[in-house]
């Protein structure tokens, strides 16, 4: 059964992350429910009216105007906080200058992990 014909133990076990206690589990805190948005634009020019060129992301599904269902055909602005009531962080790019957007994409978090956290909390 032993296709290597001799010993069955690992010849060497080297770790590069484990035990270093850096980074790997530094994300440990439960992530609060957060919602961010980004604007979708029919073309690059429309996006750059709201944001800088560096902040505008080309369509992943090809360039050119498109108004179909997939967001992959739109130019994307940067993500910004959907909560405008409590004041925005300086790094938050905001919802854009003109508001002439085609669609808005909303990204949410906190949709996984609740059961695990509840069970861990109960033990």
């Amino acid at each position: 059964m032993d296709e290597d014909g001799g010993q069955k133990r690992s010849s060497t076990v080297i770790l590069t992350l484990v035990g270093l206690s850096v980074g790997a589990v530094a994300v440990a805190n439960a992530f609060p429910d957060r919602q961010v948005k980004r604007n979708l634009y029919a073309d690059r020019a429309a996006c750059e009216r709201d944001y800088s060129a560096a902040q505008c992301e080309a369509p992943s599904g090809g360039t050119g105007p498109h108004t179909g269902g997939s967001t992959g055909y739109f130019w994307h602005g940067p993500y910004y906080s959907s909560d405008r009531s409590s004041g925005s962080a300086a790094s938050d790019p905001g919802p854009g200058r003109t508001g002439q957007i085609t669609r808005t994409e909303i990204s949410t978090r906190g949709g996984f992990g609740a059961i695990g956290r509840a069970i861990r909390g109960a033990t």
Partner: protein
Amino acid sequence: MRRECIAPRRDWRQKVEALGLDFHTNDGQPYWWEAACYGFSAAEIDVLEEATETLHKLCLEAVERIVSQRDFARLAIPEAYWDWIAASWRRGDPDIYGRFDFSYDGSGPPKLLEYNADTPTALLEAAVVQWYWLEEVKPDCDQFNSIHEKLIAAWAELRRQHPQIPMVHFAGVTEEPEDARTVEYMRDVCQQGGWQTEPLDMSQLGWNGSRFTDLAEQPIAALFKLYPWEWMLRERFGANLLADRTAFVEPPWKMLLSNKAVLALLWEMFPDHPNLLPAAFERSRIAGPCVEKPVHGREGGGVHLLAATETGSARRGRVYQAAAPLRHAHPDRLVGGGWAGRRHGVARRHFADHWQYQPLCPALFPLKPNRPRPGSTRCWAKSAPVRCARRLCPWDPARSCAGGRHRGS
């Protein structure tokens, strides 16, 4: 097989903590235990290896049967996910690892208690800590344990096969030390297999309307998650799984094997198999003392040992498995884990590895509180064709998942 009492290393705590095992003691009770180890003969190791490989093959047959006969209902899996799971199986989404838990005393065949196919832990302990212990305490012995290099090889194989995937994200409940370290270790071997990686907490996964995203709002192409599928299906983002195209490790089809119902299905398919215990969905089908398990139970939760005259809860979603003697009652009987997964370079072959080996070696260890086992069943549901929605394959976006490939062993 024999249990040998030995002196723990004087500084064992520091040594195992240096390897990431900082959860060696729980509530004042040792989880890692160096005052004993188990020694095996080569013949006994052959028995364990053969049992692991055999059961892995049987499990793959069971998955094929569940999918082809659409028998998901007996596993208490919501119908909305049946086609999605079947598609994962039909297109051969790769799996990395799983742990069979056996009851074994060196005489007679190892008996399967359950298969931790989705989120097995004790991985760092088995692959790393035990190996370092052997190096220091029993350097002249061998150990049935090459999990570490096989995991690296498995990830490297995926790297070669899927160069279009930029990185693998890793997620778990990072507040839990055992889970966090297991994820960290798997991320370690993944990186050594040539991947870029990024850690996340499960709660940090985002959804942008069409894809799961990381903290930079970038779509997650591949995700290793140490989080049970049955929980994910029930949570707020669960329905998004049907629309997303992330490649998951372990893949969706593995939830069929981590489900305790598979114990009853295996007994139904392979009655009297020497590595199986009688198991059924009805208590009345199991003679004598048995163990009642919830099909979605985890870490011994909801498990009850029933005397020969006890009928059990009769609740839905339960499996009954004939009782087997366990270690706490019989010190010479061991609950051990057989690891199964992909093997580098040999497509569709799987490796089997164990924690212990040869005359007087390793194993010391954890052997978590022992658990019970399940039972057998009724007839199979009428077969129905499995349809695979025409969508991109997570691990191979250039290929449609329709048709898929046969998964063998």
